[in-house]
């Protein structure tokens, strides 16, 4: 097992190195640079002073060869320094930490929503297998997968506004400051995201439940005369739940980068908004730090999922060790 862990960890490091290189080169391919934009923004009118642009480029080290810049970046990261925003001068890591709680709250709420809906709908769908209710619920899940979440978000603002003249407070209030307002701000976007996520949980729960429902111990439980709730929750769902946990892990990884559009609809200053602004302003340190953090998170989750699988199923680690040896 330790051999497997080391091998996987090394491969993960290789992945991370490749990722950071691709990211760095890609970001530097963005047309126009921050120095140009910033020197242009400084002027009220008239042409940009080229000497200002040159000075800014020098200040940001943009005048050095790209690979040298990459090397400098990696070295400074290893010292815990992720660079400063070209525009505000703030530490990029600090900006990220400010945006993180917003996105994290959105992720936690929408994943809770999707788990609740997904499990409920999945269990009902399995119990009602191939009956009209099952078909309707599967369609409900497919709609969630297909309808763009930013449109669901828009409709969730529009319908109450048109029919009941209710507008949710857009923007962001910290949960510590005003929990009630905070909840009203997050409920709709979390529902919009959660619906899409619930589809995969629902599909998986349904197929797992269908398998479990045919097991002998479930038949025994029914035969003992246990109540439906007890059989379904204690005997079935508990066993069907393990693969669902994996999906939830994957979703949390995916969601951190997938909230962009919904954040934009609801004016939430999360990581998506931070990255969009960073890309528009060519704020390299912000883009690099943000995307790297998302990827780290994603890679870490994948690594843990792989390890969990290997722990559960010896065949996986044995075959991997065979391949390595």
């Amino acid at each position: 097992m330790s051999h497997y862990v080391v091998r996987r960890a090394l491969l993960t490091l290789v992945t991370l190195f490749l990722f950071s290189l691709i990211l760095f080169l890609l970001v530097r391919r963005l047309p126009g640079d921050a120095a140009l934009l910033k020197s242009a923004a400084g002027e009220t009118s008239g042409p940009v002073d080229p000497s200002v642009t040159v000075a800014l480029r020098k200040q940001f080290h943009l005048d050095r060869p790209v690979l040298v810049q990459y090397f400098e970046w990696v070295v400074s990261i290893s010292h815990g320094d992720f660079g400063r925003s070209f525009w505000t001068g703030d530490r990029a890591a600090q900006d990220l930490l400010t945006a993180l709680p917003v996105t994290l709250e959105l992720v936690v709420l929408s994943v809770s929503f999707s788990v609740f809906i997904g499990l409920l709908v999945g269990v009902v769908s399995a119990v009602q297998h191939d009956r009209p209710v099952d078909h309707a619920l599967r369609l409900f899940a497919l709609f969630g997968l297909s309808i763009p979440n930013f449109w669901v978000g828009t409709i969730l603002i529009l319908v109450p506004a048109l029919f009941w003249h209710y507008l949710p407070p857009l923007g962001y209030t910290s949960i510590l400051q005003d929990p009630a307002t905070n909840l009203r701000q997050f409920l709709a976007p979390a529902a919009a995201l959660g619906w899409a996520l619930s589809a995969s949980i629902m599909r998986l729960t349904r197929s797992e439940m269908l398998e479990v429902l045919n097991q002998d111990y479930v038949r025994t439980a029914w035969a003992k005369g246990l109540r439906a709730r007890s059989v379904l929750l204690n005997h079935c769902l508990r066993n069907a739940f393990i693969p669902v946990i994996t999906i939830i892990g994957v979703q949390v990884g995916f969601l951190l980068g997938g909230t962009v559009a919904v954040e934009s609809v609801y004016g939430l200053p999360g990581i998506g908004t931070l990255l969009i602004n960073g890309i528009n302003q060519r704020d390299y340190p912000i883009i690099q730090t943000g995307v790297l953090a998302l990827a780290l998170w994603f890679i870490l989750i994948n690594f843990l999922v792989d390890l969990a699988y290997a722990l559960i199923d010896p065949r996986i680690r044995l075959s991997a060790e065979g391949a390595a040896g």
Partner: protein
Amino acid sequence: MAISLDAGVLEPQRSRGWGAAAAVAFARRKPLGAAALVILLGLILIALFARAIAPYDPLSQNYDAVLQAPGAGHLMGTDNFGRDELSRVVYGARISLSVGVVAMLIGTVGGVVLGLLSGYFGGLLDLVLQRIIDAWIAFPVIIFALVILVSLGQGLLQAMIAIGIVGIPATSRVVRGTVMEKKESLYVGAARAMGGSHLRVMLVHILPNVMSTIIVLATLTLGRAILAEAILSFLGVGIPPPQPAWGSMLGGNARTYFLAAPWMAIWPGIFISLTVISWNLLGDALRDVLDPRLRGV
């Protein structure tokens, strides 16, 4: 004595019927999938004959008819520039479907080539390719597409390329798995034993046998590509205005008018949803018919 051998006899029988009988059988077995197919054909016709169907020029502004509610003159109403919503939605089908199809082709061809090479040759090539794919997959999809798109410059072709590139790794992973499995089959061994080159074995013997997997993946990729285009255009980095992309009709300045003119928010959203729902329904139906093992992909 001449021995004639054809490695093909060892391959599983593939159904070759794609005619009317197959279509009727498909409709019987998968009515929802068939309905989705009909809707998609309708959308494709709308896209192809947009010029004949749209009552107005989708770009022409009319300041005498700003924010008009749906009615006789404008069936779906007008937007804040007095442009006809129906005409814009009809032309939007062109953008949405063309970006979806081309991005799907890029993602599928790229994914199949990488998956085929990685799965067939295995070993060091597989190890290296899979690490690149790992790094590729680690990019958050929309952010990755956004960065590529901005670095290429906004536009139709650029959106196709950016969304296509983002779709490659997922397809390649699944194809790789299926190829690794097929590689062990008797017919592949036989084809190699008879002196078939690697290229021939891959293209003539393995590729047709993973085709059903590829078709199913391609359909699902198409739905995702259309959704991705909508999100990018909504964020204002996809298809540049004034082009009538469904996503951009729902984003940017248009949002300020939604309360006064809700129809501006309704129609493009309905069309995006209808299109993606149809592709996903078709993909699900094809998966059940062609390759049930792909459930959950």
